């Protein structure tokens, strides 16, 4: 029961009457709620449609994940070794490895028709 303050009438008899004469839910409605409840619980009990991801990935998965970040570095290293060891000792290989720093080196990359442009390299004595 709720106490009423002195400046408001005591409406408690009316509140009491309201509590005692509440509109009750029908049996049909309660049955509907029960059916919903059972269906709701069953949905929560049902396993998910797809298997959840495993907490501990397999060895292969972990290996691939570990190698992914270094794969670029590995590829670059392998290419360097191939150029250094696999190619014959040519100007192209030297140029690729050490840079083209002379006209002779450059000429190796240019078409023959363009060589005339570099013919002025002779020094007047």
């Amino acid at each position, binding site marked *: 029961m709720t106490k009423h303050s002195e400046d*408001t*009438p005591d409406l408690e008899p*009316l509140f009491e009457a309201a509590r005692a004469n509440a509109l009750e839910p029908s049996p049909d409605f309660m049955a509907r709620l029960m059916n919903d409840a059972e269906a709701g619980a069953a949905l929560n009990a049902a396993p998910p449609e797809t298997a959840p991801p495993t907490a501990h990935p397999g060895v292969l998965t972990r290996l691939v994940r570990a190698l992914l970040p270094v794969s670029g570095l590995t590829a670059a290293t392998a290419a360097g070794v191939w150029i250094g060891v696999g190619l014959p000792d040519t100007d192209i290989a030297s140029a690729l490895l050490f840079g083209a720093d002379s006209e002779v080196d450059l000429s190796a990359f240019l078409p023959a028709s363009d060589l005339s442009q570099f013919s002025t390299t002779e020094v007047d004595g």
Partner: protein
Amino acid sequence: MLQPDPSLIDDQVPDAALLVAVGNGDAQAARALVQRLGPRLFHHAARLLSDRTEAEDVVQETLLRLWKIAPEWRQGEAKVSTWCFTVLNNLCTDRLRAKKPTVAIDAIAEPTSELRSVVAQMTEIDRANALAAALDTLPERQKQAVVLRHIEELQNPDIAQIMDISVEAVESLTARGKRALAAALIGQKDELGFSDD
């Protein structure tokens, strides 16, 4: 329809524990919660909406939402009943706002002498009906606060949470609501059996 295990309806098992069980797929716990909360929620909705069908709709919707959130429910964070009343209250508010505004208290005619004689024979049901009619004249928030406090008998902090307002605001709303009810019903105070002392 299976009836819930009586031991689950017993208040010994907290609502939150039942809801966690529902989250794990326990249908019996769900039925027990319906048995506990269904009628209370329905009473409240029926008082606010004054319509059985609409009250059924909002109660059903509230409980469907409850089953949905059950797997994520964390014990100790909120009362299940408070959560339900909050959802229910909001659903009722939406419906009330979609309806035409309630009648202002000033617009209620004083009972005629003929009506007074009828009122004199009022039973308790009539008192409940008179209160319901007077409640319908209150502004929506006042009505909600008065019903939650004085008919559902919830505590002010719970009502504050349900209505998303401060405890002081709840006190203010209920006080103003009761004054407005008294003003609407004072002409029938003898018949209705309340005193203004």
